[in-house]
C-alpha cells in the first residue's frame, strides 16, 4: 500500500490566555489535544463533533493557516510546516478548503469569474483563454450554467453559492479537499444535491476528502471512515459500518440516539438520553482524566484520574474509554 495522502501525528493546538498590562500568560486554551489519523488516497473521512469541539481549528492547522503547538502534519510524507515558499505554493494547489457559509466566503464585489480566476492567477496561470476555459468547465461540472460567471454572489441563491465554493475548490484539481460543514447552511432539499455532487466529483477525480460535520446523519452516505471528536480529542474512530452498527463509546451512542431519524418516529421511540445535562468542557479548564467524564452517565472513579488510551475493538476501530477497555479485556 502506498503512503497515506495526509497523516496527522500527535497534533496539539493550544492558545495562551493573556491578561494584564504585560500580557502575562495566565492560562492555556487546549483546543486540539493529541490528534492522530491518516487519510488514504481516494478515501472520505468524516470528522463529527458538536460546535466548539475544535474541528474548525484542526482544519485550519491542516491547511497551513495556524501552525500546531506540537505535532506534525504530513502531506505525502512531508511536513507542511517545514516546506519552503515554493513547496507551500504547491501544497496549497493540492489541498483546498470548502467553507461552511457560502455567502461570506465569496467576495461580494467580485463576479463569480473573478473569484474563480483568483485561484488560477495565484498559482501562476498566465494564459487568459485557458483560464476562462477551465472556469467554464468547472462551473459545468458543479451543475451551474456558465453564464453565471458574470454574476455577483448576491444574485445567486444559497445552493448556487455553495456550488461556486465547490467549483473554486476544484479549479486546481486538488488531491485533498477539506470540507468544513459544506451543507449545514443549506436548505433541506438542496443538501442532497450538494452531497451527491461531492460524491460524483470524488468518483471522477479520485480525490480524498476530510468531511467535517456536526451530526452523524449527514455523513452516513458519504464517509468510509468516521471519527468522533469531543473537546479536542478523538473519542472513537472506525469504519462507517462499525460506527453505525457497533458503536462503543457512550458519547457516540448518544450522538446516534439523538440524530434525526424517521424510523424512531415510526416506532414511537421516546427520548432517553444517556447524557448528563451540560455543555462541552471549556478548553481553558479541561477536566482531569477522561474528557467526557463531566457528562458521562457511566463514569467511575478512575475516569476522573486516568486518561483513557485508544483501545482496539476490531482492526481499525478504536475507542478511548476505560469501561469499554475493561469489557474487551474480559
Amino acid at each position, binding site marked *: 500500500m502506498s503512503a497515506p495522502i495526509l497523516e496527522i501525528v500527535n497534533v496539539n493546538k493550544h492558545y495562551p490566555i493573556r491578561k494584564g498590562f504585560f500580557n502575562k500568560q495566565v492560562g492555556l486554551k487546549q483546543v486540539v489535544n493529541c490528534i492522530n489519523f491518516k487519510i488514504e488516497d481516494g478515501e472520505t473521512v468524516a470528522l463529527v463533533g458538536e460546535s466548539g469541539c475544535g474541528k474548525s481549528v484542526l482544519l485550519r492547522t491542516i491547511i497551513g493557516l495556524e501552525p500546531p503547538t506540537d505535532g506534525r502534519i504530513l502531506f505525502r510524507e512531508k511536513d507542511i510546516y517545514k516546506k519552503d515558499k515554493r513547496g507551500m505554493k504547491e501544497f496549497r494547489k493540492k489541498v483546498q478548503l470548502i467553507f461552511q457559509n457560502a455567502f461570506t466566503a465569496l467576495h461580494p464585489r467580485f463576479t463569480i469569474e473573478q473569484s474563480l480566476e483568483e485561484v488560477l492567477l495565484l498559482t501562476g496561470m498566465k494564459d487568459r483563454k485557458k483560464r476562462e476555459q477551465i472556469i467554464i468547465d468547472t462551473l459545468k461540472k458543479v451543475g451551474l450554467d456558465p453564464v453565471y460567471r458574470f454574476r455577483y454572489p448576491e444574485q445567486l441563491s444559497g445552493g448556487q453559492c455553495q456550488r461556486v465554493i465547490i467549483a473554486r475548490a476544484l479549479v486546481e484539481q486538488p488531491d485533498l479537499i477539506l470540507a468544513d460543514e459544506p451543507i449545514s447552511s443549506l436548505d433541506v432539499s438542496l*443538501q442532497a444535491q450538494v452531497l451527491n455532487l461531492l460524491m460524483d466529483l470524488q468518483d471522477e477525480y479520485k480525490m480524498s476528502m476530510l468531511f467535517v460535520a456536526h451530526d452523524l446523519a449527514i455523513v452516513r452516505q458519504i464517509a468510509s471512515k468516521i471519527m468522533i471528536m469531543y473537546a479536542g480529542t478523538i473519542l472513537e474512530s472506525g469504519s462507517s459500518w462499525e460506527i453505525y452498527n457497533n458503536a462503543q463509546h457512550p458519547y457516540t451512542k448518544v450522538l446516534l440516539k439523538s440524530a434525526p431519524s424517521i424510523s424512531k418516529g415510526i416506532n414511537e421511540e421516546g427520548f432517553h438520553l444517556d447524557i448528563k445535562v451540560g455543555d462541552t468542557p471549556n478548553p481553558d479548564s479541561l477536566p482531569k482524566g477522561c474528557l467526557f467524564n463531566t457528562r458521562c452517565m457511566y463514569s467511575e472513579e478512575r475516569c476522573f484520574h486516568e486518561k483513557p488510551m485508544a483501545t482496539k475493538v476490531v482492526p481499525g476501530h478504536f475507542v478511548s474509554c476505560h469501561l469499554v477497555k475493561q469489557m474487551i479485556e474480559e
Partner: protein
Amino acid sequence: MGEVSKVNTHQDNQSDVLLEVKNLKTYFYMQSGDVVRAVDGVDFILKKGSVLGIIGESGSGKSVTSRSILRIVDEPGKVVGGEIIFKGKNVLELSEREMAKIRGAQISLIFQDPTTSFNPYIKIGEHLSEAYRVHKKDSKENIKRHVIDALKMVGISNYEDILNRYPCEFSAGFRQRIFIAMAMIFNPALLIADEPTTNLGITIQAEIIEALIEVKERVGNSVIIITHDFGVVSQFSDDILVMYAGHCVEYSPKKDLLLNPKHPYTVGLIQSVPLLEARKTRRLKSIPGFPPDMVNIPKGCPFAPRCAYKQEKCNQELPSLKNIGGSRKVACYYPLYDYHTSDDLKLG
C-alpha cells in the same frame, strides 16, 4: 379563561378543537410594489393536547404562519384573509387589548435563538417574574412560587441560584430551557416553538425536545413545532403539515406521512434528507432545481417546475388541499399512492 365556544358551525367535535386555521393568507407588500405571498391559504386544525409539526424550507411561510396566529407579523406584512379560531373566537377580529391578554397567557412563542431572546442586562428571575406580572398582579411570594414551579417543570432544580444570575452566564441549551419555562409560566393552552433547536448542538437539541415533551405531559398543552428537520418532527408530533412556497402541500397523521407520503415534495424530502438510517443506494435521490422566488411564484402548482410527475394541468391550476381518506390531505392532482418509505430506507 376556559370559555367554551358558542359558534358551533363545524361538524367536528368542537370542544376538542383548540385552534382552527382556515385559509390563512399573509402577504408582504414591499416598497417596490411587489407582493410576497408568504402564506397563501393554509388550513389546519389543532386538537387539545396534540402536537402539530410544521416542516418546510426557509421561505416556505412556516414562521409567518405562527406569527400570524399571534398577530405579530412584522411590517410590511399583513394578514389579508382567512380565519384563526382559537377557543371558538376569531383571533383576527379581537381588539389589540384583548389580543395582548392572549399573548403569553394562552398562546406563547419560543424563538429560535436563545442568545438574543433575553435582555442581557436583566436577571433571569426578573425575566420570569415579568412574564407573570404582565398578566396578573400578585404578591411577591406568589410570583416567586410560580416562577419556581415553571423552572421545576423544565427540569431545573437549583432554581435559587439561577434567579439571581444573568442570561450570559448560561449555555445556549440551558437558556433555551429557561425560555421554555418563561413561555410556560401561565400554563398556556398553546405553545408555538419556532425552530427551537436550530443552531444548537445535536445533544442539546435532544435535551430541549425532551424538556418540551416533559412539559407537555405535565401540563397537557397543545404544541405547534416549526422546523426544517425531519428527525425532530418525526419524534415529537402527532400530525405533520408540510409547507412549500406558502402553501400547505400535505397534512396528515405522522405515521401515515412517514410510512407512505403522498405528495411528490414530501417524497422528495424523505428521499433526500440525510438520515441516520441506512439507505439502499449510496446516492441520495435529490429534488432537482431550487425553491421558487417568492415574488413571482409560478402559476399553477408551486412545486410543478421541480416535480418529476407533473402534467399539463399542474402548470395551469393551483391544486387545493383535498381529503383523500383516512384524515389525510394532499394538495396535488396526481398524488403518489404506491410509494413507501421502506423502498428507500432499510427500516429495522
